Structures are given as C-alpha cells and as structure tokens.
C-alpha cells in the first residue's frame, strides 16, 4: 500500500514537471509584464494584449499556412513516392533492385551534416532560395519511409495481388486500390512522423528562406524572438511561442495514441 502511494506520488510529480511549464506559459501570455514571474497562474489583470501585439508585428497567420502547405506537400510526397518505391522493392523483380535497396540503406546512414551545405548550394543554383520549392524538394522522399512501406507490404498476401492482376490492374492500380487500403497503420505512421518532423523543422528554413512572408511558423517565431522585434518583452515572446505550440497540441489531444505509437516506431530505424 505504501509502495503504491509512493508510485502515485512520483507519477504525479512527473506530470507536474512536464505539464506545469506549458500551463504557466499560456497564463503568462495573458498577464501584464510585471506579473509574469509569479508562480501562481491567475492574475487580476488578464488580457489578450500580447497576442494582438504578435499578430500586428509579424505575419504569423500567414506563417501558419506556409507551414501547413509545406508540411502537407512533403507528407503527401513522402507517402506517395515512399509507397511506390516500397511496393517495387517488396513485390517486383527488376534489374538493379538490390542496388537500389543498398542505396536506401546507405542514404540512411549518412549524417545530414555532410550534405547540408552542398544541398544549400544546389538550392541556390536552382534559384529556389526564398521559394516553397526550396523547402519542399529536398524532403520529398525519405529512405526510412520507403523501408517502413516495404516491410509492411511484405506481409500482404501475394494472392490478393495476383487476383487484382488477373482482373487487369496494373502495378499502380494494385498499389493504390488493393495494397494502400490494407496498409492504414503504415500510412498513418509515416504520415504523422513526416508531418511532425517537417512542421517542427527550423534549421533548413532558416537557411533557405529570408523573406518574412515565406517563413514557416517555427522559423518566424525564432526570428521574432531573436531579432529584437519582440523588444525583449517576455509576454509577447511567450505569446508567439504559444501560438506556435497550439496547432500541434490541438492535433495531439485528438490523436494522442497515434502520435505516440508513430513516434515510438522511430525505434525501427535501427
């Protein structure tokens, strides 16, 4: 009994440690600057003033749609191309199949630090600095996702594919009409992982986007907090961070289980 109580005590302490800072942040954005350091969440003078300052100073709504467009494009592309290549690797025989498979494994092992600068140079040469293409193109495929699809497709019975072929389906029809509908767990895993990582990516946007109107949300908040536009006001800085956290927290609160399961499959990477 005593052990049980102790267990709950530690679990609750953990919950406070992980959740309280976020709660404090949200309430701090509503308080006047001078009351922000208070540990107590509520205040007599709560207002949305900090949010109106953020909305007036930076195009954060625009940045939200930039992020949404870029992340959705990357996610769609990773799912479509990942499943096509995964299908070819798991079900088709063609010349150079093993070579392609080796290339994919090889690509996964390269630390991104080595390709970062040459990729930037490539984007400059292609004239894609300050364009959505500069953000989307380098992330359009992912070796990890190809492997997830390949692995999942290997477990789909060959007889289903044979019967679709007898019905006159070509490879792409087989993939999108027969296999994908049976592969929802793989699609949602790849989808959530890709969306999360591209939504939260900030190093690459900092490198290829200079125009404030095209900035992604995390990038814009970073530039805002660092660039002096927030004028050192904590409430305003925290308000921009809260706006940045909001979309992900809302999505997370609806699909917790999928988020946790998908992110836990990063374990498969090794």
């Amino acid at each position, binding site marked *: 009994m005593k052990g049980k109580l102790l*267990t*709950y005590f*530690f*679990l609750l302490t*953990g*919950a406070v*440690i*992980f*959740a309280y*800072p*976020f709660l404090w*942040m949200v309430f701090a954005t509503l308080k006047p600057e001078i009351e922000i*350091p208070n*540990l107590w969440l509520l205040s007599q003078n709560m207002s949305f003033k900090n949010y109106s300052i953020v909305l007036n100073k930076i195009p954060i709504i625009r940045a939200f749609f930039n992020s949404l467009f870029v992340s959705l494009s990357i996610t769609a592309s990773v799912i479509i*191309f990942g499943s*096509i*290549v995964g*299908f*070819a*690797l798991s079900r088709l025989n*063609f010349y150079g199949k093993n070579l*392609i498979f080796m*290339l994919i494994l090889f*690509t996964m092992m*390269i*630390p991104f*630090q*080595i*390709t*970062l*600068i*040459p*990729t*930037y*140079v*490539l984007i400059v040469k292609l004239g894609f600095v300050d364009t959505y293409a500069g953000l989307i193109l380098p992330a359009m*495929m992912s070796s990890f996702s*190809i492997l997830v699809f390949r692995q999942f497709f290997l477990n789909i019975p060959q007889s289903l594919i044979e019967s679709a072929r007898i019905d006159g389906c070509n*490879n*792409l029809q087989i993939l999108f009409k027969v296999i994908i509908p049976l592969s929802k767990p793989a699609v949602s895993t790849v989808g959530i992982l890709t969306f999360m990582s591209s939504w939260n990516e*900030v*190093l690459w946007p*900092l*490198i290829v986007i200079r125009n404030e109107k095209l900035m992604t949300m*995390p990038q814009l*908040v*970073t530039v805002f907090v660092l660039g002096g536009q927030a004028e050192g006001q904590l409430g305003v800085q*925290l308000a*921009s*961070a809260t706006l*940045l*956290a909001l979309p992900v927290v809302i999505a997370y609160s609806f699909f*917790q289980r999928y*988020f*946790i399961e998908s*992110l*836990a499959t*990063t*374990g498969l990477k*090794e």
Partner: protein
Amino acid sequence: MVSPYVIYFLVFVAYPLTFSFILIFHRWNIVTPMEFIGLKNFIRLFRDETFFKSIINTLIFLSIHIPLQIAVALFFAQLLNKKIKLRGLFRSIYFLPVVVSGVVVTVLWQQMYAYETGLINQILLKFGFKKIPWLVSPKFAMPSIAIMATWKNVGLYIVLFLAGLQNIPRELYEVAEIDGASSFQKFLKITLPMLNPTIVLVVVLSTIGGFSLFIEPYIMTGGGPMDSTLSAMLYIYNQAFYFNHMGYAATLGFFFATIIFLVVILQRKFIERDVY
C-alpha cells in the same frame, strides 16, 4: 517504378556528396568564383581551436544528456509498468513536450532559467536553496541545455522503455522470486540485460539527436557565454551562413559527419559487447 527515387538519389544525395568532396578543396563565398586551395581547409581545421571547443561542447552535452535521459526514462517507465490507474493519461502528459516544437520549448525554458525572474530559481528560493546562474555562467550553461533537452525528449524514451519492459516474460521474475532475489537484484540481473536492445536504441537515437544540437543554443545563448554552449552544428552554421565560408564550412561538416559516423558505430559495438 523506382525511377523517382533514382532521380531523387542522384539530385539530393549523390550530387551533394560529390559536391562536398569538391568544396572541401576550395575557398568560396558563394558569390565570386571558387578558388582551389588544396588542403588548406584541413590545415585550418586542425588549427581551429574554436571548432574543437565546439566538438567538446557537443560531447559534454551528450555525456550529461544521455545518462540523464536513460535514468529518468527508466524510472518513469518502471512506474508506468506497475498496475496503476490512468496509465494512458500519465503517458500522454509525459509525451507532450516530445510533440511540441523545440522552438517553443527553448523560448519557454529561456524564461524559466532567467536568473532573477525565472521559475526555477524562484522555486529553488522557496525551498531554501540558492539561485543558480543557469544560462549566465559558462559552467552551468551547457548542463542547463542538456537538462532542457532531456525534459523535451524523455517522453519518447519512456514509451520505448515501457514497450521493452512489457516484453520481458513474467516467468523470469517469478523464478527469481522463488530463489529469493531482492527487487534490486531483479532489476540488475533481469530488467537491465533484457532491456539491452532498447538501451542501445536510446543511446544511438539520442547521440544522433545530440550531435545535431543547434536551435537550442542558437535561440537561448547564441553559443555563449564564452562559447560554452557553441555546439559543432551551430559553429558550422555560423561559418557557412554568417561568414559565407562555404568551402571551410563544408570541410567542417565533412569532418564532423565522419566523427558522428564513427561514434555511432563504436557505440553500438561497445554497448552490445559490454552487456552480453
């Protein structure tokens, strides 16, 4: 059907890799033509004390972050593995910082670490401790960032350890109990060895993550005070995009990537041999 991948590979993997081999022998500010300088970039690298400091900083970060992460994750995973109510709720709360952007976490913790007004020092004062100069002192700054990174990522590792714990057959513990093993002995002789694959995974994942440490010092400290939080990635970024030393930055990236590659391979060999 694999042709899209072949194109992607040629453009975004093979070309950058090849081009990085060219860049490391050149001086280039991206505007004027490239100038061939032989091995000068490497000579400069080996004399560049700031770069080696940035690598050591990154290793300091890893040496605090990884053990802390494993200890905290194992602790909470063990608690969650007991017969408790609201397991799902606790797990979801611990996982929340994992899904939120690193930018949010950094802006928030920068305020929490503030010397006079920060939450953490205020709580320390309430409990009768002294204030700690978290981000202002060169001694504390990197450990502060490591603690924050642990807070942000540990939820993922709790989930991985929990899955690992649930895969350990109950019978092992039952047999040990019959032999009169204490809980500590069971933890040492059964839990830890059985969790070895998860531990390897956690070490490798957080090493790779730690080597790309960038946005946290970029926002929080700009690498200071006295370059104490200058991570290798931040230094490379500054060389490339602040000073426009493309050739030199590519050389640094090449060198650093080689280190990462070797460390990860060594780690796996070492940990796997160590436990079995």
